[in-house]
Structures are given as structure tokens and as C-alpha cells.
């Protein structure tokens, strides 16, 4: 009986963290919050199987030669050596991917920011309408293929039709068969579809900047809207800027589908061939799994790398 009371007393005494080792404390917290694990488990199992494992599996397979039929054979860095030294098309793909990312990423990011900033002062109904006009192309599915009809290579294409009508040219231009037009056109189309999540996030971020900050800024001598943007608005929505950057960067690497739909697979002279296409070619069609895993790993590292770089740059906003 007395023993029982003693146990009860010990239990009732609050346990401080310093009384235990770190492992004991963690274990206790884990038991206390086991509902958390149960709730996250269904999501996490699928996430682990379909997102985490594949990233590591690709990294491992990139050091092997594997065709899905025989057991993978370890070949060290051979895939990477072949990619950078023997595969001219891959070097074109890296170049095009970088051009695509460096142009569409920042341009779509700044376009999202400025359009969101411009429309922030419109009355709510008007703002909702203008938001729809700018956002709709990004969710319009395959609507971008209308550009294939605009720039169709015969005189019934709108652009050729007008250029011929007003005597700028006499023969229709083969827009998507001419290497010097394909990349710029695809970039324009990609930009048309690029005001997506980043744009919505900025619109929302601008609306929640505290009004008193602007009043205080005016007293502190902010002279014009540009100073206000740089010294007050942008620092106040820094977290949105970061999220938007992640969305824009990821998007800027994902425009392969637009190129395929407009310029064909492969595009003329591989002029708009990106890493995504190379991956699709070796992984989805030739089933060279080891080799395409190396391509996927490089693409993965490029995307994570550029995200980290931009994170560093954005920490300087407003300084």
C-alpha cells in the first residue's frame, strides 16, 4: 500500500527535461505525441516511396549500367564521363535548359511581382478580374497550342498571314522548323503560361502588408513608390518572395512539354532540346536506366542548387 503511494508520488512529480538524457526525453515525447505519427504515417509512407526513395535510387543507379532486364552492374563514374565527354546532344541540352531557366525563371518572377504590385491598388472586383486574365493561361491546359496555329508555317498561320499581307515577307516563315526561331518562340509561350502560383502568392502577400508600415514610411521620408516598394513592401513580404522564388525556379525547369508540343520531339537540330527531353529519350524510350538516372541526378542537383543560390540572394532584399 505504502509502496503504491510512493509510486504515485513519483509519477505526480513533474519531470524536467534536465533530469533525463536526450534519448530518454525524445522517447518520452514520442510516446506522448504518438497520435502525430499515426496521422502523418499514411502520407509519409507514400511520400517516402514515391518521392524520397526515387531520388536516392536514381543517385545509386546512376553509377550502374542497367536495362531493366539484367541485374544492374556497377560501372563507377562511367555514365557521367559519357554524358560530359561523349554526348554532344547532352551538352546542347544543358545549354538550352540553362537558357530556358535563366530567361523564364527571373522574367516570370519579376513579371509576377510587378503585375501583382500594379493591380494591388485596384478595387477588389476589378482586381479579381485582372487576376483571372493574367492567371488563366497557366491553368488553361493545352491552350498554349494555339501558338502552333498563330505561328503555323503556311500562309494560313496568323503571323505569316499578316506579314505577307503587309509585304514584310513574300514566303511564309517556317517558324518551328527553323532553329533560330524555335527557342525564342518557346520561351515566349512558356512565359505566357508562367504567371501561376508565384503570382497568386504575391497578390496575397501584398494585401497583408501592414498599413501602418506605409504611414510610418511616409513620415520617415519615403519619396516615391519605388522607394516604398524596396524599403517597405518587399521586406514585409520576404517570406512570400522566397516561396515565389521556389515555385518560379521549379517551373522554369519544367517547360519541356511546351517544347515537345510546339517544336516536336526532337526539335529541329536539337535546337530546343532540354535535359527533360534527354531524360525522356533515354529513360522512357531506350530504357537505359543507369544512364538516364545520371541525367535525372544532374537535373535534380541543378534545381536544388539554383534554389539554394536564390535563397542567398533574396536574403539581401531591402538592405
Amino acid at each position: 500500500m505504502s509502496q503504491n503511494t510512493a509510486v504515485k508520488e513519483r509519477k505526480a512529480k513533474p519531470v524536467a527535461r534536465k533530469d533525463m538524457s536526450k534519448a530518454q526525453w525524445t522517447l518520452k515525447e514520442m510516446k506522448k505525441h504518438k497520435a502525430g505519427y499515426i496521422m502523418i504515417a499514411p502520407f509519409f509512407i507514400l511520400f517516402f516511396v514515391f518521392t524520397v526513395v526515387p531520388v536516392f535510387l536514381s543517385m545509386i543507379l546512376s553509377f550502374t549500367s542497367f536495362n531493366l532486364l539484367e541485374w544492374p552492374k556497377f560501372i563507377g563514374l562511367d555514365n557521367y564521363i559519357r554524358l560530359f565527354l561523349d554526348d554532344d546532344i547532352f551538352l546542347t541540352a544543358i545549354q538550352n535548359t540553362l537558357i530556358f531557366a535563366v530567361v523564364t525563371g527571373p522574367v516570370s518572377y519579376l513579371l509576377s511581382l510587378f503585375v501583382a504590385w500594379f493591380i494591388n491598388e485596384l478595387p477588389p472586383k476589378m482586381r479579381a478580374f485582372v487576376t483571372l486574365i493574367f492567371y488563366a493561361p497557366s491553368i488553361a491546359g493545352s491552350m498554349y497550342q494555339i501558338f502552333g496555329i498563330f505561328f503555323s508555317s503556311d500562309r494560313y498561320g496568323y503571323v505569316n498571314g499578316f506579314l505577307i499581307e503587309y509585304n514584310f515577307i513574300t514566303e511564309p516563315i517556317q517558324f518551328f522548323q527553323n532553329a533560330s526561331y524555335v527557342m525564342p518562340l518557346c520561351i515566349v509561350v512558356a512565359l505566357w503560361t508562367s504567371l501561376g502560383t508565384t503570382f497568386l502568392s504575391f497578390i496575397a502577400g501584398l494585401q497583408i502588408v501592414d498599413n501602418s508600415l506605409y504611414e510610418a514610411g511616409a513620415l520617415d521620408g519615403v519619396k516615391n513608390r519605388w522607394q516604398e516598394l524596396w524599403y517597405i513592401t518587399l521586406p514585409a513580404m520576404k517570406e512570400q518572395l522566397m516561396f515565389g522564388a521556389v515555385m518560379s525556379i521549379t517551373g522554369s525547369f519544367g517547360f519541356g512539354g511546351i517544347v515537345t508540343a510546339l517544336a516536336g520531339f526532337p526539335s529541329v537540330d536539337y535546337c530546343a532540346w532540354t535535359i527533360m527531353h534527354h531524360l525522356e529519350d533515354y529513360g522512357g524510350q531506350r530504357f537505359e536506366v543507369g544512364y538516364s538516372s545520371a541525367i535525372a541526378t544532374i537535373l535534380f542537383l541543378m534545381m536544388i542548387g539554383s534554389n539554394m543560390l536564390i535563397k542567398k540572394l533574396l536574403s539581401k532584399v531591402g538592405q
Partner: protein
Amino acid sequence: MARRMRVRNHKVVLNRSAGGDAGITALLVVLGILMFIPMYFSVMTSLKPLDELWIFPPKFYVINPTFKNYADLFRLMNTSWVPFSRYIFNTVLITVAGTFGNLCLGSLAAYALSKIPFPGRKTIFQMIVLSLMFVSTVTGIANFITFSLLGLIDNLLAIILPACCSTLGLYLMKQFMDSSVSNEALESARLDGAGEFRVFWSIAMPMVKPAWLTLIVYSFQGLWNTGSSVYIQSEQLKTFNYAIQQILSAGIVRAGASTAAMVIMMIVPVTVFIVSQSNIIETMASSGMKD
């Protein structure tokens, strides 16, 4: 200074030059028109009768609008050897199942990450943030192997399961919970003896309705546009968008039917967005990423 303060849209607006206002408005109008032209043309072209489609030079407007292109599209669809309703059924099945799965798994996970301080949640959340930083193409090949091992090649589950664990909607919901569900409300319910699932369902969930809707819209948009996939080979398991792409691939020869197809594919997500816009913007207000 105070003399120059103006109020616009219930907010104090400072230091705005009239010239700047005019310039910005002009720029916005020009950009808006550029964004709108392709949409406008798709709709116009889809309403043109055959003889107007081939007028040279092409016209900006329709003289005798007709729905014949839409009728043609349905006639073309019926020539496919798999009944067209099958493609539509597949797309609807994928979209509904994937969105429902993502909503259930995502909201449970978002609640756990936001409101239950279990050890390891920071690491898991960092993994989720990291997953927003790369496109899913990267994982395609490895997933092909996984699906072969699981026997899910040529099975719609190969599309539905990865959609259930998509992370953007979860991320937005978690951030929204952080900022708009107060811990005090949850704590008092816990003291009353409610279990975590009960707290989740009857207190947290009703407070984050905008985030649900955002998750649903994002999942829906992604799945609605599912086209051809390496995981699916049988014709009777292909999607609506895949069938549309087959029609589009004929190019300008079928400009009428193609644009009709584009308009049909566009109308659904755009309508969904119009209905849910204010909720999505509300959710996006807390989308910010802390470092």
C-alpha cells in the same frame, strides 16, 4: 507630408505621381491584352465556320459564329476505337480519387506537422519543402521501377497514388494552420478530453476551409491535365487529355476541332478558379517560406 496621403481601396497610398500612375496603367493594359489575345483567338477560331477558317489573311473576329466545330470534335471522338466516354471516365476517376486521397492524407499530415510537437516533424517538413524544389520528372524512372515491382504498370493507381502524396497543397495547408488556428482553442478541447483525431476533425478542419479548397483546386488542376504517361499502355486506360492531344496533333488542318478541344479543356479549370479565387488568395496570404 500628410497632405499628399491618399486613400485607395481602403489603404493609405503615398507619394504617387500622376505620371507614374498613367504609365503603370498603360503597361498593365498592354500586358493584359497580350495575355488575353491567345485565349480570345482560341475561342474565336473554335466558333468559325469552315469557310471563315481559311480566309486569307485570317480575321480577328467571327462573322457567322457556329458550334459546328464542337459537333465535329464529337464526331472525331466517336471514330476512336475506344469509346470516348471511356477516356472521360478515366480522367474523372483519376481526378476524383487522387484529389480525395490528397485531401485526406494531406490535411491529416498538415495538422500533425502544424499542431503536434512530435520529435522529427521539423525534418519531415524540411523534406516536404525540398520536394517543392524539383519537378517530378526527376523521379519518373525510379518510380517506373517501383511500379513494376508493385505490379502497378498499366494500372491507374500508378497515377493516383503519387497524386495522393503531392506536397504543394499540404505545404499551403500547414502554413495556413500555423497562422490561423490558435493553439489555445485546440488546447482547451484537449483538456476536455478530446483525442487528437477529434480535435483535428471538429476544431482545426472547420477553421481551414480556404486551405481545403486550395488543396482541392491544385490537385484537380494537375490531375485534370494528365496526358500520356509511361506507366499506362492500354488504350482503354488513357485519359481525356491524351485523346485531345491526338486530335491536336493533326495541326492546322483541323484548326476548328483543335481549338474547340482546347476551349473544352480550358473551361473546367478556369471555372473552378473563378469560383474559388478568394479562398485561394486567402490561403496564399500565409504561403510564405521561412528560412
